[in-house]
């Protein structure tokens, strides 16, 4: 499936704490669940999520099979300067997806 769903305020005041939400389509197959043929489906999860703000890492997460399918993560950051937030999800089977959002700080 296509694009992740990112929520970042388009504008913020310098020093303001802004909330960031990220939702991505992914089955997060646990590796413990039998498939239609009764055999256990191999694990297929996103293992890591990283957010950078103008190329500086500000938040990351290590994810495990207990995370829900289509994983959702929300966190906060201080709006320090205008620029780009980059979100990257990586995981099993070479999974890698990135999305960016811009923020204007005044």
């Amino acid at each position, binding site marked *: 499936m296509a694009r992740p769903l990112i929520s970042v305020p388009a504008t913020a005041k310098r020093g303001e*704490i802004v909330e960031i939400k990220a939702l991505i389509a992914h089955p997060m197959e646990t590796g413990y669940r039998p498939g239609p043929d009764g055999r256990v489906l191999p694990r297929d999860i996103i293992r890591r999520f990283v957010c950078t703000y103008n190329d500086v890492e*500000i938040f990351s997460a290590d994810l495990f*099979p207990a*995370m829900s399918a289509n994983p959702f993560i929300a966190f*906060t*950051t201080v709006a320090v300067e205008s620029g780009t937030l980059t979100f990257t999800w990586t995981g099993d089977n070479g999974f890698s997806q990135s999305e960016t959002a811009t923020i204007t700080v005044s």
Partner: protein
Amino acid sequence: MEIGMEPMTSVTRRQVLLAGAGLLSVLMVRPGRAAPTDMEAAIQAMVGKAEIRPGRVHLEIPPLVENGNAAPLTVTVDSPMTEAEFVKTIAVFNEKNPQPNVAVFHLGPRAGRAQVSTRMRLATSQKVVAIAELSDGTFWSDSADVIVTLAACVEG
């Protein structure tokens, strides 16, 4: 759980309270205990020999969820989130899924606020534990019990 139909108002408050008893006992990593649960082992792997103190961490998760596939949770830690004093890590553990780890969040002073939200799977009714590691090396925790009701018409 009964198969009889009851009015939906009887959400099992009693069960919630019962399950809440003895809530924090699992957090005490008891050295010398023969067979620690998987969750205790996972927590120990995070904190090592350090003491885990109850407090400062607030784990917010509904006491009863209609489906265990996506229980929303928020962890907040009391911290000024300054360069001098901040939360480094927030980890979430569960007691009865096949694996005790849920997620480990890495943050720092630039977060402004020590708060993360996510959604987790609960294979069955169980305890969920959140542990925060602060910049001074101390560990704090909170836990909550969640009751998962059975879905009615499911695909197996």
